[in-house]
């Protein structure tokens, strides 16, 4: 329980924190080097804990202070934690490589704010995430959530501009509301069961008013932090306004923390309390996120905003697995294929989204702007960057053998088995929506420019390589997951069936882009004003209005409470009916 082998769990959490403390003392001149050392050491620790886990073939536990729950706190690593820790470690390394030159220590040795803060915040986010993945106590998880929020918010306003400060404040306030709701639920659980340890609670929690209330409040609070539509009020401006290296951290990593907690809560603490209908609500929100997020992404004029809205859409995917993870009788959530699919989706998204934001950031830095309409010629001028962007997009679309592809396959199988055909529609249709905004950007960058493209700044090779590597990781993720998943699930990517479906997805996406994007993005919409656009154009505007409505503070907070009520009702109803 406290052997040296499991000590890696403690190190996984503490090494990044030690890095922050060391960086704070050693100052701006050395902080980047401290980050490098910490990342290398942390990678080693995470890999070693993965090995220990695989060898022991059962979850690793570490009793802190040698006190067992319910008196003490335990760290626990199961397959879910280990997989997420690995994915996050890889992404952190990639982001560090990307940001290496952007946030280099100043040449004159005088500490500057932004580079100094960036490395501290990167390590802080990493440590907090590892704590979220490993902690086995609900209150420690609350502290971890706060750590994550405190590390993520300053990244949004790192450049100090007025709009980013405003976005950061909105993010902070909404995230704090989410944490408080989470804490309230945890408090209720302690009041009813006398412990906050996840493993102990799993055996104690029974459906009842306190369990329902706690489940609803904690879920909704965490959804607010994960920015699941329509609770995404803070995400688009925050992620778009942060520096690219920061957006990568925020989109790819930070939101995974609260998502992970929803999974822990539903699968490990309350599998018998959450009902199929409440899971349907969760996935319905996800489907809506995919729909609205993708369409609003298509309507954007700036690349970083497009990528931010694509995050809104991709978050929806992370929640589709919940109704598909119930056992045959529809009574209890089980750790099966659907959960594997969820983890795959999360890892695939983390790597691909990081790569995408990195590519967008490189384009922005090199051109001085990121207006999609004016990206002509970029493909020729920055081939590796555009390749990274395209590969990331393919990975998100679910092209074989990407992680998203395998996740979709697993979910489609589960949907088929449980007869929930509507999720099949969502899964298949969602890929087309993803393809939509990818096609939009790629068509724009491949156009021939009327005047030669002038690059303000040459992108650093390391940054381009980092972006491309992460995107490729996502594209090949299914191969990495071959261990726990049967190999025959991955068909030959060049087989006619797969090529045809990829083509169908891309064509579908192209149509959506053609119909829904703004006229000013002349590349795709320049075809004359046929009646397809006249029908679809206003539809696009409607979705934009929906998004804008949900992003107002009063509507978002009202929706927050209403959803809590809805979840409670569905949990009560599911038991009675």
């Amino acid at each position, binding site marked *: 329980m406290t052997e040296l082998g499991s000590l890696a769990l403690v190190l996984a959490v503490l090494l990044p924190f030690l890095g922050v403390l060391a960086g704070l003392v050693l100052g701006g001149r050395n902080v980047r080097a401290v980050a490098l050392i910490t990342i290398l050491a942390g990678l080693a620790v995470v890999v070693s804990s993965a090995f220990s886990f695989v060898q022991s073939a059962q979850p690793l536990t570490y009793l802190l202070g040698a006190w067992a729950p319910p*008196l003490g706190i335990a760290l626990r690593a199961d397959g879910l934690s280990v997989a997420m820790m690995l994915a996050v470690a890889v992404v952190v390394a990639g982001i560090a490589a990307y940001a290496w030159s952007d946030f280099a220590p100043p040449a004159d040795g005088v500490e500057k704010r932004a580079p100094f803060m960036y490395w501290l915040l990167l390590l802080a986010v990493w440590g907090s995430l590892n704590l979220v993945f490993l902690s086995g106590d609900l*209150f420690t998880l*609350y*502290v971890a959530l*706060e750590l994550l*929020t*405190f590390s993520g*918010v300053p990244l949004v*306003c790192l450049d*100090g*501009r*007025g*709009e980013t*400060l*405003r*976005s*950061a*404040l*909105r993010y*902070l*306030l909404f995230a*704090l*509301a989410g944490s*408080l709701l989470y*804490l*309230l639920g945890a*408090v*209720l659980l*302690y*009041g009813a069961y*006398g412990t906050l340890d996840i493993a102990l609670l799993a055996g104690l929690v029974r459906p009842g008013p306190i369990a329902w209330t706690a489940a609803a409040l904690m879920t909704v609070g965490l959804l607010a932090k994960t920015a699941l539509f329509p609770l995404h*009020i803070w995400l*688009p*401006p925050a992620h*778009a306004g942060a520096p690219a290296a920061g957006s990568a951290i925020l989109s790819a990593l930070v939101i995974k923390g609260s998502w992970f907690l929803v999974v822990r809560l539903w699968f490990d603490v309350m599998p018998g309390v959450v009902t199929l209908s409440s899971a349907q609500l969760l996935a319905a929100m996800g489907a809506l996120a995919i729909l609205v997020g993708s369409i609003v992404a298509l*309507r*954007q*004029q*700036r690349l970083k*905003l497009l990528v931010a809205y694509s995050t809104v859409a991709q978050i929806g995917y992370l929640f589709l697995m919940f109704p598909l993870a119930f056992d045959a009788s529809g009574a209890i959530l089980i750790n099966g294929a659907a959960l594997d699919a969820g983890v795959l989706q999360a890892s695939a998204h983390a790597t691909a989204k990081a790569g995408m934001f990195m590519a967008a950031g490189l384009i922005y830095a090199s051109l001085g702007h990121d207006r999609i309409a004016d990206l002509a010629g970029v493909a020729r001028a920055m081939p590796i960057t555009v390749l990274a962007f395209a590969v990331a997009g393919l990975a998100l679309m679910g092209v074989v053998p990407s992680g998203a592809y395998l996740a979709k396959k697993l979910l489609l199988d589960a949907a088929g088995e449980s007869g929930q055909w509507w999720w099949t529609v969502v899964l298949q249709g969602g890929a087309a929506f993803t393809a939509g905004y990818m096609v939009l950007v790629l068509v724009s960058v491949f156009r021939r420019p009327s005047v030669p493209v002038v690059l303000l700044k040459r992108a650093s090779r390391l940054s381009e390589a980092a972006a491309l590597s992460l995107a490729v990781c996502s594209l090949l993720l299914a191969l990495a997951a071959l261990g726990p998943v049967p190999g025959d699930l991955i068909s030959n990517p060049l087989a006619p069936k797969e090529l045809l479906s990829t083509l169908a997805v891309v064509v579908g996406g192209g149509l959506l882009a053609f119909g829904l994007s*703004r*006229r*000013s993005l*002349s590349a795709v*919409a*320049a075809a004359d*004003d046929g009646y397809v656009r006249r029908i679809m*154009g206003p539809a696009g505007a409607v979705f*934009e209005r929906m998004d*804008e409505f949900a*992003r*107002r*503070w*009063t509507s978002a*907070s*009202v929706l927050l*409470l209403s959803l809590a009520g809805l979840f409670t009702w569905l949990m009560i109803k599911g038991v009675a009916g």
Partner: protein
Amino acid sequence: MITAANLFGLCAAALIGLGLFGLITNPHPLRKILAFNIIGSGVFLLFGVIAYRGAGAGMAADPVPQALLITGIVVAFSATALAVALLLRLHDETGSASLSAEATDTESRAEQDTPSS
């Protein structure tokens, strides 16, 4: 008569509701921060009631929740400090303290889909 535990428990429930109302309706961020603190103190009060109900073994209250409360109060203070610092900086930088989306809208809605040249 109502027990102290139930009385303050109901009081906590009311405070949480009050704070939520303030959080939703008051547009000024500083008032939202105040509302947070009301909600937070309501949650802490509820936890304290739970601790009080857990008296036993020679102690007047269950010490675990009380210890967690101390941590919680400190964390809440640091959250308030960060939020206030962010708000003040926003004010220094832009002169306004508004959170409204119009002030930072992602796309100018006024841009019409004009026929392209």
